[in-house]
């Protein structure tokens, strides 16, 4: 294996210099991995190790930035330990401890000697290296915030978002990386007055990350946080846009929760505003109910779908039905809501259709279990006492033995409650 002659193996500081040199030379790195020696050896070895020669204009609202990546800048590094091509960087696990110790030492030294703020660039350089190795090192994230606060340069704030994306691409659950984004956005959002653009980009980022990292609480929490910055139009748009993705990820409870939050946001608007968006919201809920029904029939035994239906039923009963039968009326005089009685009867019929299990496959058993718990939950928690007419109660009595039989694990709880 060829060795680069300028650097000797085993010197910790030069390892760090090589690492930081690569990061400096290839500003568009979008993926970093730590590979064991055998995996590392099988990577395609590039002889020159040169970084890319590119010019990338980035435009955002009024601000336009041009970033010139170094032309034909040859970065020296030991190819036994680093591999850099096509904006990818691989580091051999053999040197991770050494690199970490060197980066930590350099970071602490520069932070402690940062009198008169002269070492801020050093701090940014060393924390970048350190965080790639140990992305949860919160003090390093904090020192970056200190430097960015003081310099207050747009380019640096935007670069911080890119750096956070780089970290998240390899470690999508890192809390510090997500909160760093929120910290930057709060500052940059006011400055740019381009909140819709930022919201869209953040939303897209979450969706991209959620594709690889299922039910990622922090990612989706970040997306929910954005809702507070949206107006009603944006909320409607998000609901429409995310529907397709959700259909392809019916086992991901997070994306359904996100839809619930968007829909709750609209309900709140509906209560506060005049009758303007009433039936748009009502129609939305009705369509969501129909859509969920379709998915439940198509994807057998999916808990997230039944949880979603509980929410929809709960809201529908509370906001769009009455005991007496007064209903919301559309522009074309069609009644689109109903009495509580009618609605519940329909729901019971729908859920009961899944209770008779004819085959023994797990999915069908799960479907029956979820249907049973849906019925019990709805009758117990979504209906007020006045709505519990004799018809519903007798239905419940009939169903009780079948319901308890169907739900093995949780029967203890239900028995107590019934």
């Amino acid at each position, binding site marked *: 294996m060829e060795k680069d002659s300028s650097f000797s193996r085993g010197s910790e500081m030069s390892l760090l210099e090589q690492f930081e040199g690569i990061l400096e030379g290839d500003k568009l790195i979008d993926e970093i991995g730590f590979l064991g020696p055998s995996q590392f050896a099988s990577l395609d070895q590039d002889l020159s190790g040169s970084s890319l020669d590119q010019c990338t204009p980035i435009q955002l609202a009024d601000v336009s930035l041009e970033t010139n990546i170094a032309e034909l800048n040859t970065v020296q590094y030991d190819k036994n330990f680093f591999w850099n091509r096509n904006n990818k960087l691989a580091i051999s*696990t053999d040197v*991770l*401890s050494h690199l*970490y*110790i060197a980066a930590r030492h350099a970071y*602490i030294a520069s932070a402690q000697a940062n009198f008169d703020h002269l070492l801020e660039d050093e701090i940014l350089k060393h924390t970048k290296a350190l965080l790639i*190795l*140990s992305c*949860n*090192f*919160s*003090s390093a994230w*904090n020192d970056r*915030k200190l430097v960015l606060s003081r310099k207050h340069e747009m380019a640096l704030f935007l670069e911080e978002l890119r750096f956070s994306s780089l970290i998240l691409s390899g470690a999508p659950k890192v809390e510090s990386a997500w*909160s760093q984004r*929120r*910290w930057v956005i709060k500052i940059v959002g006011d400055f740019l007055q381009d909140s819709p653009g930022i919201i869209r980009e953040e939303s897209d980022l979450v969706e991209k990350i959620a594709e690889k990292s299922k*039910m990622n*609480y922090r990612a*989706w*929490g970040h997306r*929910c*946080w954005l*809702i507070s910055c949206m107006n009603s139009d944006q909320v409607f748009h998000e609901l429409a846009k995310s529907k397709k993705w959700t259909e392809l990820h019916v*086992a*991901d*409870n*997070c994306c359904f*929760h996100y839809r619930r*939050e968007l829909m*709750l946001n609209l309900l709140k608007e509906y209560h506060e505003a005049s009758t303007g968006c009433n039936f748009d919201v009502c129609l939305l809920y009705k369509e969501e109910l129909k859509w969920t029904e379709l998915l439940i029939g198509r994807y057998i035994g*999916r*808990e*997230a779908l039944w*949880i979603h239906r*509980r*929410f929809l039923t*709960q*809201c529908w009963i509370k906001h769009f039905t009455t005991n007496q039968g007064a209903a919301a009326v559309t522009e074309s005089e069609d009644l689109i809501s109903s009495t509580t009685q009618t609605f519940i009867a329909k729901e019971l019929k729908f859920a009961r259709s899944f209770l008779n299990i004819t085959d023994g496959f797990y999915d069908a058993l799960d479907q029956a279990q979820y249907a049973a*718990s849906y019925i019990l*939950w709805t009758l*117990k*928690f979504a209906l007020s006492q006045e709505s519990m007419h004799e018809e519903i109660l007798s239905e419940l009595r009939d169903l009780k033995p079948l319901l308890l039989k169907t739900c093995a*694990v*949780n029967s*203890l*709880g239900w028995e*107590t*409650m019934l």
Partner: protein
Amino acid sequence: MGELEGKKHVQYIVSVEKKKDSFEALVIEHLRLNGAYWGLTTLDLLNEIEAVKPDEIVQWIMQCQDIGSGGFGGNVGHDPHLLYTLSAVQVLALLNRLDVLDIDKVSDYVAGLQNEDGSFSGDMWGEVDTRFSYIAICCLSLLGQLSKINVESAVNYIVSCKNLDGGFGSIPGGESHAGQIFCCVGTLAITGSLHHVDRDLLGWWLCERQCKDGGLNGRPEKLADVCYSWWVLSSLVMIDRVHWIDKEKLTRFILNCQDKENGGISDRPDNAVDVYHTYFGVAGLSLLEYPGIKPIDPAYALPVDVVNRIFFSK
């Protein structure tokens, strides 16, 4: 099923303490104070706290304190944060060395992180999360300094994070998550505000966490994980609904997550062990009243005798 390999777990915890130079150990050195809490509480629950030397630990903990703010970092030289401040107080409580603390200084740090709306930030950078509410209230309660904060607004903020399914998230509108639920219910329990919880509704959500393998998950559609034996179970205990889950199946699940040869407990059977899951497995078994383990307080997450010592010997 087998038994709890108490001695093996003690050996595992003591050995982890010594392995500080591997890359895996280096990338978690910033949360060593949390690790100390998990390890030492487990030892105490297993009646083996004598396996460590308290003086060294106390000295190291105090070195983690940031002199300026009064808060604690996760290790020496690290920035202060609520997360590590609670662990510091909990470990000192465990070792019966709360006397080394300047109570006012620590409490002022914690109380200073409360926001207008009653929520708490984790540190000076402002990130809000219901976990931080729990940490602040648990910490101040142990130090007898709850009067330094606005308890009513703190409770109101927690209530604002309640979802329609009865659960709680990290911020208002956040997805219900067993860990966040523990934090919110714990906060309400410590402040005497559990009447805000719909016990049947939340109890239902919590008991649905039990999977076919007997283990508990943290949210719908997720796999069982030993750490939820604590988050879910302690929440159920606090709202008096623990009889809604199958305790025997859960016990078997936790015991199956042990590494019976080398000690330690993993997130699920046959995975790699770590101190975090070892603590939560043993804490869960304590709540299930497994013989040979000290009882643990579900709200303070410390052995009951430690909590009693703090509250009843004043």
